[in-house]
């Protein structure tokens, strides 16, 4: 019963008669479109249109719409189509299709590209201001929660704090050690390779020591923590927001910042200096190993050189930065988490933006600290 569709147009004295036959269904979509396009050019020149549907063996929405379109073209050029021979079982469909596509959706005028660009810039500026506001708001809420804790120390969620310390601190150690060890080794190898040209191999110890303790150790660890724990915070808080858990907390008279966010951020502030210390040691160890095997600097000489090259100041400069970076990561992660809307896509979007923003801010903060320490002579 299924057969290729035909239109069989017969033009007699400017009266066009169409006898569609066969299967007018989506299975023959391409053929159907060609057929109906072929006829539509003739329609303007004719006086009357007759459509005899008796030959149609199968009809679906696509076929019915194409036939309806031909009728409408005829009507718009001034002569209504005379459609006969509609099979009973397709009458409902044809009637339905007559009702559709009556109203053209208003086509939007294309936007001026300059205006569109300006609008984008404006929106970006606005959202940057919004970000700053959200950051400050979270900082304020944290300060407030901290004051409450200081007044009533027993309201600190100790279990939660220890749990998060375990997660962002203890569980992060293996990956942090591995990465910083490799970074230290790479810095040492590159240093030896290039310093050798000047016969200055032994200065690689100064390079590794100062770079790792002042900058790289804490920076790498902070970036890793932003990616590992900041994103986890955003995703956790975001999914709590999605499932209305945060609203449930508020309606029970509890402050979500105090219950959920403060323990997380305190855990991060405690964990990051420890991780930065562990990471710096691993990097020095990696650098020392490469210096020994690749540069021929024995461990005893390496340690002796290190003793001369670095002072406690370098170590302090690195360590002072760690808690501030932790605070920035925690605030960004939490405020992005609370900005999650109802849908799963927004959870993914906020998690991404949490990681991107916290890494950006960590690097900016590092730069600010560099300027600060330089000006006070540390």
């Amino acid at each position, binding site marked *: *019963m*299924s*057969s290729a569709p035909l239109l069989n147009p017969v033009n007699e004295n400017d009266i066009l008669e169409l006898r569609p036959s066969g299967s007018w269904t*989506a*299975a023959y*979509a391409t053929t159907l479109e060609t057929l109906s396009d072929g006829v539509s050019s003739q329609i303007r020149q004719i006086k009357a249109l007759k459509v005899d549907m008796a030959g149609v063996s199968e009809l679906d929405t696509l076929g019915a*719409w194409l036939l309806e379109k031909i009728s409408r073209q005829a009507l718009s050029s001034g002569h209504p189509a005379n459609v006969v021979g509609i099979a009973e079982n397709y009458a*409902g469909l044809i009637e339905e299709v007559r009702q559709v596509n009556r109203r053209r*959706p208003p086509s939007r005028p294309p936007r001026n590209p300059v205006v569109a660009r300006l609008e984008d810039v404006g929106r970006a500026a606005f959202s940057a201001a919004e970000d700053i506001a959200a950051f400050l708001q979270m900082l304020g809420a944290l300060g407030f929660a901290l004051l409450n804790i200081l007044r009533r120390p027993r309201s600190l969620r100790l279990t939660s704090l220890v749990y998060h310390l375990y997660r962002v601190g203890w569980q992060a150690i293996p990956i942090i050690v591995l990465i910083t060890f490799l970074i230290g080794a790479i810095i040492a190898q590159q240093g030896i390779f290039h310093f050798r040209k000047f016969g200055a191999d032994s200065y690689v110890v100064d390079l590794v020591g100062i770079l790792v303790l002042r900058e790289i150790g804490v920076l790498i660890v902070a970036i890793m923590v932003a990616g590992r724990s900041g994103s986890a915070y955003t995703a956790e808080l975001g999914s709590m927001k999605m499932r209305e858990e945060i609203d449930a907390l508020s309606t029970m008279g509890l402050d979500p910042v105090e219950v959920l966010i403060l323990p997380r951020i305190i855990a991060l502030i405690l964990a990051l200096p420890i991780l930065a210390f562990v990471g710096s040691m691993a990097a020095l160890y990696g650098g020392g190993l490469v210096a020994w095997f690749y540069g021929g600097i024995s461990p005893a000489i390496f340690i002796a050189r290190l003793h001369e090259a670095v002072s406690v100041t370098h170590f302090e400069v690195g360590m002072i930065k760690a808690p501030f970076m932790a605070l920035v990561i925690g605030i960004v992660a939490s405020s992005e988490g609370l900005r999650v809307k109802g849908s799963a896509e927004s959870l993914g979007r906020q998690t991404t933006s949490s990681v991107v923003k916290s890494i950006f801010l960590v690097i900016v903060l590092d730069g600010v600290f560099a300027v600060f320490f330089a000006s006070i002579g540390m």
Partner: protein
Amino acid sequence: MAETAPQLAIRVSDLVVGFGRQTVIDHLSLDVRKGEILGLVGASGGGKSVLMRTIIGLIPKRSGGVEFIARSISKGREIGTAAGRWGILFQQGALFSSLTVRQNIQFPLRENLVLSDALMDEIATAKLEMVGLASEDGDKFPSELSGGMTKRVALARALALDPAIVFLDEPTSGLDPIAAGDFDALIKTLHKTLGLTVFMVTHDLASLNIVCDRVAALAEGKIVAIGPMHDLLRSEHPWVKAYFHGKRSQMLQPKQN
């Protein structure tokens, strides 16, 4: 073709489905007739969705057979992929969140047919209007739709290629009574205009009563009763009795008792 017996659309025979040691569907047989609206009822967690998902091939079966009787009218050049054979309305709509409503409806068309963009837009708008939405709604994203609109768009997408069979998973759940009633009417209308076979999993007693030609009751992994609504109301099976004669079902009882 024999005209005496009703033509079948789906024949499920001796189907067994289970997970681990648990058997959910236990030697179940069910015939879905061509052009009918069959409602499937069953306890929550009793395997209704499992049965539906097994029929459409999302869950592997242990034994038995699921047979789709080919559309007698278009054996020749059927659209090869699944979307041409059946349309499925998932409970949460399952609209592609990164596409607009119009793109969602066009998706099966775009994947299966070669059509000009203009015609594709017209077909999508036609489908949108057939499910009772305006063409302006086509530019919205799924996240901007209400529950009832999501279901309508999902139905429009399920119907994009005019499949012969439509599976509906709890089409009226989560809708208010007015929206649910409208949706029932819509299913009934489309069933008539497009000549659909509808397989519908539902808990909504009103839509069972109004929309379904036949109702099948699933209990203990088997179909324990099947027939028009008034037959099921007279069924003696204890679970069916409990389901249709509970407090919440009083509205279905004939007034004279």
